[in-house]
């Protein structure tokens, strides 16, 4: 005797974004904290030492925020004009920043007034950085030069005049005190060695370079400019590895996640994209309200800080790992109902007479009703508000099962105004869902057949029927348009694809070879 086979609830493919490990990781952030700055946020830099404060350069100020503070813990306001590129030294004690007025200022993080002023540039300085030996400063300016300065004496050490346009970005090597890289609007990225007079490697990015980034291993270099993000292999003399074009506006900022597995790029198109550094595919995407100018990640990805053109600083903090785990654990521990089975672990002895009881199978309510052939009741159960809205696939499965049993008509018939309107509501809600349409069309036809005599008796039902009609008409128009687009695309593809010749041997009179072009299309995934 086989047991009753419960109705199979079909698992429908999830529409929309697919849930991957990456999405889970990057979604695990709290709602962003938004802070209004005085102007566009051009640069954000995290302090390398705990508690990992970060310096935000916006307009004429540099604010330093603590990891969880809403208010700046410190601000440097002594700029005559727009400040640029506030960066921490590797010990987190000093901060350097360029300025529109061509003066580079060095601050003690605990002080207020600039310790040193480096004067020499003739135009705005957009790039400042400390070298890895901590005693020198690299600056790049709109006067096409980049210079190295000595901190103790505040004197200029070297000037490089190789770029032919504004220098807007650059980075110093963390491993070698003599190496640094600059990117310029003349489309090139240059690697300089302070021990020699000129650049060692020149890489042509193709667009004005907005941002450069060195991998922690410093074997790979990432440059962003225009819509492109390019990866270069420095160990092979600046050979291009990959060119990524995933933004539709200029990429302004780059960042690496703490473990070096993911690369983030921010762009004026208001997106931050996360790439996997193994295959350079986009694995996640953040949307922001305005064009993004700067982006930084806290160590261990504890927070993502984004500065935008509308002078908003957005800080996303990571959700506390323990908190979420604890909640999940609690939910798992607590059963929905508790059953005490006395003597559950009792092992029968040799002389015991064993009376076996058949295991009672748990059936859902609609299944119980279906087993008793109570088709109307089963449909009622499946149309309960909770199921109808939260799990429409259950309602669908029951309707399908009734249709298979040939009793759908019986189940649909004999309903009062409330029942019918409930049914029509469900129809209207799910009719155009491609996953449900085939089944619901049958049901809708049956409903119309059964209840056509009562049309006009209830204003509620009439209104719903009109809505349904409207919906169907709209859907038909929509499908027509889609077909038109599809036809247009087909023509375009057909003309763009090269005509392929099928190899054909000369022999074979009897073998009537036909020349053909295989029409291949991309697979349509319908797997559930």
């Amino acid at each position, binding site marked *: *005797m*086989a*047991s*009753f*086979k419960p*109705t*199979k609830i*079909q698992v429908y493919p*999830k529409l929309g974004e*697919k*849930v*991957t*490990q990456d999405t*889970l990781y990057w979604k695990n952030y709290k709602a962003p904290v938004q802070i209004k700055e005085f102007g566009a946020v051009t640069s954000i830099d995290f302090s390398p030492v705990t508690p990992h404060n970060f310096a935000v350069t916006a307009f004429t100020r540099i604010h330093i925020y603590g990891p969880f503070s809403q208010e700046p813990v410190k601000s440097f306001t002594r700029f005559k004009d727009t400040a640029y590129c506030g960066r921490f030294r590797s010990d987190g004690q000093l901060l350097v920043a360029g300025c529109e007025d061509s003066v580079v200022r060095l601050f003690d993080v605990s002080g207020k007034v600039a310790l040193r002023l480096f004067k020499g540039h003739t135009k705005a300085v957009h790039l400042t950085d400390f070298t890895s030996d901590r005693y020198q400063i690299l600056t790049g300016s709109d006067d096409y030069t980049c210079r190295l300065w000595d901190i103790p004496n505040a004197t200029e050490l070297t000037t490089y005049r190789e770029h032919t346009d504004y220098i807007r970005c650059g980075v110093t090597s963390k491993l070698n005190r003599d190496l640094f890289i600059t990117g310029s609007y003349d489309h090139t990225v240059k690697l300089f060695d302070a021990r020699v007079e000129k650049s060692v490697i020149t890489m042509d990015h193709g667009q004005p370079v907005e941002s450069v980034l060195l991998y922690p291993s410093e074997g790979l270099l990432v440059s962003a400019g225009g819509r492109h993000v390019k990866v270069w292999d420095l160990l092979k003399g600046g050979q291009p590895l990959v060119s990524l074009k995933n933004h539709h506006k200029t990429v302004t900022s780059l960042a690496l996640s703490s473990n070096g597995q993911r690369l983030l790029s921010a762009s004026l198109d208001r997106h931050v994209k996360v790439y996997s550094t193994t295959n350079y595919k986009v694995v996640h995407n953040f949307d922001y309200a305005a064009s993004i100018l700067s982006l930084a990640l806290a160590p261990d990805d504890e927070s993502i800080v984004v500065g935008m053109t509308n002078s908003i600083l957005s800080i996303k903090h990571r959700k506390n790992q323990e908190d979420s785990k604890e909640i999940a654990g609690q939910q798992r521990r607590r059963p929905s109902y508790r059953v005490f089975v006395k003597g559950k672990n009792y092992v029968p002895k040799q002389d015991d007479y064993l009376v076996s009881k058949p295991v009672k199978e748990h059936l859902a309510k609609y299944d119980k009703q*279906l*087993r008793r052939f109570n088709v109307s009741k089963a449909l009622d159960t499946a149309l309960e508000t909770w199921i109808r809205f939260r799990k429409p696939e259950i309602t669908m499965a029951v309707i399908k*099962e009734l*249709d*298979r*049993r*040939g009793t759908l008509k019986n189940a649909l018939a004999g309903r009062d105004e409330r029942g019918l309107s409930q049914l029509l509501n469900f129809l209207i809600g799910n009719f155009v869902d491609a996953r449900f349409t*085939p089944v619901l*069309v*049958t049901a809708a*036809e049956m409903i119309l057949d059964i209840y056509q005599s009562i049309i006009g008796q209830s204003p509620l039902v009439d209104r719903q029927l009109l809505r349904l009609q409207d919906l169907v008409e709209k859907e038909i128009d929509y499908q027509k348009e889609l077909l038109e687009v599809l036809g247009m695309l087909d023509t375009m593809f057909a003309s763009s694809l090269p005509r*392929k010749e*099928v*190899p*054909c*041997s000369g*022999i*074979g009179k*009897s*073998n*009537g*070879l*036909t*020349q*053909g072009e*295989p*029409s*291949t*299309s*991309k*697979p*349509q*995934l*319908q*797997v*559930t």
Partner: protein
Amino acid sequence: MVEHGDIRVVHCGGSKLNFRDPVITHDSRFLLCASGEAVKVFSTSTEECIHELRGHTGLVTGVLLRPSNHLQVYSSSLDGTVRLWDFTDGILIKTCVIGYPIYSFYASAKHENVIFIVTSMPSEKRAERFQLVAVHLPQSGDQLVEARELSAVLSGVNPNPAAIAFGRGGEFIASVNDLQLEVYFFKKQKSYRFFLKEDNKKGGWNTFTCVACHPKDDCIATGHEDGKIRLWRNFNHKKEYTYSTLHWHHSAVSSLCFTPEGTNLLSGGVESVLIQWRYKQESERDFLPRLGAAITHITVSPDGSLFCTSHSDNKITIIQSCVKVSAVIQGLVKGDSIRTDLMMDPRSKALVLNGKPGHLQFYSLQRDKLLYNLDIVQQEYIHESGLQQFEVVKAAFDASGLWLATVEERHQKAAELELNLKLWAFDEQTQSFVLNTTISAPHDAQITAMSFRQTADSQTTLLVSTSKDGHFKAWQLAAPAHTEDEGPSWLCDFVGAYHGLVPECCSFSADGSLLAVAFQEVVTVWSPATWELLTTLSQPPGAVSDLCFGRLSCSKYLLGTTASNLLCCWNLLTCSLEWSTSMDVRRLLVDPLSENMAAFCYQSGSTDLFVFKPSEPRPLFSRKAVCSGKVTQAVFAPREEMLESCEESSQWLNRSQLYFLTQQMDLMTFTTKAEEDRLLASSKQLVIDDTVAMTPFYLLLGKHRQQQQEHRDSDSSLWAERTALPQTSASIKELLQTPAHVLPSTSYLCSMFVQSLLISVSDVREEKAHAEEEMESEKEEEDSEEEMESSRSKPELVAAATESDAPALTKAQARELRRVRKLDHSWLAGLLDS
């Protein structure tokens, strides 16, 4: 054409089990049922077939326990004989020739040596009229007797065995036919007839379908076409009869049965629910639902502990006291509904085809037993006529048997086609297939063909399905893309089409490097690695209906059959037609283990078979008129062990065996003479003790025992001596092991002891003269020993003596010791090793 005298087409397995109602023996241990031309004896506990009672030359139409001897059974057949068997040993005791085909037969304890048979009326011109005839079985010791004393009892009866029943100890017999119930009383020699109207007001059909009589009470239960059951009482009066009606079934009642004590009435029908009505409290009833298929017969064991239902899907269910199904005897399910091709499961070497609705059956050809049913549809089956059910229409195995792909479809008139492609993975732990992926609506229209890439190293398994929507799709096992998925699932890898033509069939080459898809007249060859169209081949006119790649040395050939009766062979190296011949090939098959191909051709009402190699012009084997009708389903089954046939004509059968289904849904195969001889020999060997059911466990252990025995037998004459021992040693042992203080007097013991020895000598007949001499001397020795008995204090001495010095030993003890030494203990070692 070569003569092939020694290759025969034979029926193979899967005879009907549900043709007539089965019989349970008195001790409820065996179940007998008519199956084709034999009676099968099954064990009710292990479901295994113990004997087949063979001898009838026609279809067996009934099995009955002999009322006077419950260890014997009668069987009747269309060949006009009634045979008496001893079913415990499977021996034919007596054959009684009646001379008329017997459609059903009955016996009752009251009528000794009389059986009642239903046979067609000889006088009547129309063959549809049947009569009930009483036959006196002649009492003679001969094996073959002829029954001459025939007397007609009732005429115009229904040949259906359910339509006649004996009532209350055989006092009367009730027969139903159409709308009439006839009761014949043997004592009064008088019959009463009761009629019903054709249909009542509510439009039910009153036609009788079956009848059963209460064993203790004057009550007749009849089942009707409209699902009603009527209980007739007071029917020994013409006018004052009464009946009450029970109604649960929604369609015809097919079987009724009272329990032996008459406390319950069992009924069953197409709903596949067994209903137990309490007699005289008919409102109370028990149900046993979901028995799988429509019930055709119900029987109850004589002690009432077991119920047994036969089902329309060739199944017998044994039910313990109306609550628990204890055993299911399932035969091969055949019918018009077989829509899948015949297949071989590469793992279990079982034949696979769809049987029960929504299931695939795995049928072991070697053991002629259904291994299991795999539920493909996994939906509650609704027993209702006119309902469109999901049907399994296609199935395919991959080469290693790890994956199974099935297609199920349901086609309703109004709605569109519902199609599901399911992929099943073999689970090593449960040893069965587990659903891996369900793809709903894989294509827009029906799937015409499906094929796995047949590579042995199945790292990248690939499935191709072709459909009437003009596309073929390649499905591939892919790693989970999402985190919430558990394991790998199947995804569409490629969609191909060719000028909007409808693909009819597809085939992978043996190494899996080429895929051929036939789009009507054009065969396209693709490379599955890159999905490039390599070449196209065509041979108009006529659409290609079957495609096969050659194997092994013929792998460069691609064979196709076209609708315009052409068999074409293309050479893939030159992309040209190698040869073609005109024949109406219905099914083209390739032997997976050799280069051979088989083609079933339909010609003038019958099917011919050709077995050939694509590279050779002459067929290896051809046979005209293999069977009548078309053959569309066939399979090559690899043999477990290769045959060594040196004859050229039968060499193609060496590696694999060819099975096919005829239009009448008979499973047939080809056998060679040598094979038949071998089978016959093996069947003689396999005579099994009927007390032990033939379980795999028994076979395992039993074989081992046999080996041991052979081993022992071959030892020497020494063994013969030892086998004689137990009889003698029993008394010796008794003598030796009883404590001395409880033993009776020696004189008493002596006579007893001597007597036991005398018996033992007479028992052992096959002892050699030498052994007898020894025995005699032994006897003397024993006697002398007996005399010395008093001197021996303890029986344990024997054990002690083996260690102590020789002088203490008596002669008997010394001999015993010698014997022990000579014994071969190697069997013990063998036992330990195993």
